[in-house]
Structure formats: structure tokens, C-alpha cells
């Protein structure tokens, strides 16, 4: 009998060996790793095409060891539609922030979802525009102070935060829609499974899959990473409940 040290956890192959520009504690990094792990486990790295959004996740091409197309702000689902329609055998996903997807790109996500495009969408909800200095997003919580809502989001004038995962689940074209968080190891493992499921939905059934990931933006929330992480359970999950809102066969493939 000899004893050896077996590597039981390492960086995924689909992630490049580089340090990111993300702020300390920013969970864009966690969401990136989970997407890379899902591509590794489905064996699609060599035929994966990511479509990047505008925001703090704009450097997708620098961090994933896959092909990436840069989309104009909010237009990733439209770009992904074109990419997937001409390269049907490739695996195509968008990775978008909440300013990108739920504000400037609202039209593109709704129509791509409604058409039931065979793409996967990873939606990173950190309740603010991270890259540009923490402005109010459609996902900003009631009373949340941001640089453009210094006295707190006023729902009377600004409306209530949009629950995108629930909203999209109402569209016929959507096969899979869920919301996950990455604030503790248990939720992170569930998030990884959900992302893999959304990716599998495209690869095996040609379905549209959507995963909303609740994440922190410690910098623009003005919190240290541990406090920011606590805010996810204390304030975000009560308004944005975790769960699967839709899980059906793709449109036209009902049995």
C-alpha cells in the first residue's frame, strides 16, 4: 500500500490560466468558473462560442479558453441567434449583466426567448450597473441606494425590480428558466447543476435555457466581500426567490 495525493479540485480546463480584473469577492468569477465547469463536463469546449455583453463581464474572451464574440450592449441574444443559426452544431451561450440584459437589451432577450432560439443565457444579477459606477438597474431593490438613486429606489416613480427568470418562463419559447445564488457552497453546487442543465438543454434538445445568477458587487454596494455576500441571503433572495420556474421540452418537441 502506498499513499498518493489525488487532485480532487482544480481550475476547469475551459477557464484560462489568468487572473481576472474582477474586484476582490466579485462573484462574476464564481459564475465564470461554473460555466467553464459545465462546458468541461459536457465536453463542448472545442465547439463553444460565448457571446459577451457590455459590463464588467466584457472580457469573456480573456478568461474563457473558447471562442467569443463581442456583442453591442444588450444585443448578445440577437448576436447569439445569428451565430447559432449558421453554426448549428456549435454550443452557443450569452453571458450578460442585469444592466445589459434587463435594461438596454430587454427587447433582444424577450424576442430571442420567445422564438425559442437554441441558445443558453447566463444572466448575472448584481442589482446594479457594476462597470459604470453603480447606477440603478431594473433589478435594483426597493430603497436600495445607488449613484442614480441616492435616496433609495422609489418604486412609485421607478417601478419594482424585474424578476427576469419568472418573466421569461411565461414565454412559449423557453424550455428552462431558473434562479440560483452563489453565496454558500450548497447554493454554488446547485448553481453549477442548473447551468449544466441549461447547457444540456441546448446540446441535447436544441432548447432555450436561462439561468439567473444572484451575485455580489462589493465595490458598488460599498461593502466588503463578506458583508456583500451576506446581503445576498438577507436582501436579494427574499425578493428574487431561488428555484426552477420552467423545465419542459423545447417548443414543437412536446410529447
Amino acid at each position, binding site marked *: 500500500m502506498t*499513499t*498518493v495525493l*489525488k487532485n*480532487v479540485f482544480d481550475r476547469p480546463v475551459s477557464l484560462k490560466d489568468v487572473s481576472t480584473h474582477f474586484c476582490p469577492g466579485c462573484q462574476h468569477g464564481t459564475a465564470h*468558473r461554473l460555466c467553464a465547469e459545465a462546458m468541461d463536463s459536457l465536453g463542448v469546449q472545442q465547439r463553444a462560442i460565448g457571446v459577451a455583453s457590455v459590463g464588467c463581464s466584457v472580457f469573456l474572451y480573456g478568461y474563457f479558453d473558447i471562442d467569443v464574440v463581442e456583442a453591442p450592449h444588450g444585443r448578445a441574444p440577437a448576436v447569439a441567434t445569428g451565430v447559432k443559426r449558421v453554426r448549428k452544431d456549435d454550443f452557443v451561450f450569452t453571458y450578460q449583466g442585469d444592466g445589459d440584459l434587463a435594461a438596454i437589451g430587454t427587447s433582444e432577450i424577450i424576442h430571442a426567448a420567445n422564438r425559442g432560439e437554441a441558445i443558453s443565457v447566463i444572466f448575472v444579477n448584481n442589482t446594479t450597473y457594476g462597470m459604470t459606477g453603480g447606477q440603478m438597474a431594473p433589478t435594483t431593490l426597493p430603497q436600495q441606494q445607488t449613484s442614480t438613486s441616492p435616496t433609495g429606489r422609489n418604486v412609485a416613480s421607478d417601478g419594482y425590480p424585474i424578476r427576469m427568470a419568472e418573466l421569461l418562463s411565461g414565454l412559449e419559447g423557453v424550455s428552462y428558466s431558473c434562479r440560483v445564488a452563489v453565496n454558500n457552497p450548497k447554493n454554488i453546487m446547485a448553481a453549477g447543476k442548473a447551468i449544466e442543465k441549461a447547457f444540456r438543454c441546448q446540446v441535447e434538445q436544441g432548447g432555450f435555457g436561462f439561468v439567473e445568477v444572484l451575485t455580489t458587487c462589493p465595490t458598488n454596494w460599498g461593502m466588503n466581500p463578506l458583508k456583500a455576500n451576506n446581503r445576498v441571503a438577507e436582501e436579494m433572495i427574499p425578493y428574487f426567490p431561488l428555484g426552477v420556474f420552467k423545465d419542459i421540452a423545447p417548443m414543437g418537441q412536446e410529447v
Partner: protein
Amino acid sequence: MPSNRIEIDPIYCKGCALCTIACPQKLIEMSDALNEQGYIPAVISSGNLARCTACALCARMCPDAAIRVFKSVETDGGQS
């Protein structure tokens, strides 16, 4: 018999401390010195490493994929 081990990569660690709350055994601490990037990195003492179960929860929690985990396993000397 060598103990399980984790390696916290100083190139990736940004000192966010999220791994310290993820470890069920509370084995990870923050250093008192800056790393190359100018962050205060997470560290694990050799005494604490001896108690590591290689559960990898710290590594899953890390937003920067800075932690590698190695589990001590016995083999019969053949193919592993």
C-alpha cells in the same frame, strides 16, 4: 501517511476571505502580509492542514478559482 492538502495560489488569491467562511472546520485564515498583487491572501497553517478533509468547499466558494485540493488516497501500487 501524508495529510490532505490545499494550495492557495498567490497569483489568483485576492484576499476576499470568502473561503474562510466556507470551510466547515474553519481551517483557513487571512495572512498578515501582502501578496505579489498587493492583497492580503488566505493562508492555512500546517497544523490546520493536518485536519483538512479535502471536502473542497473552500475551493468551490472561491470567486477566483485560487484553491486546488488534494486528497490523500491509498493505492495498491497499481494503476490509480
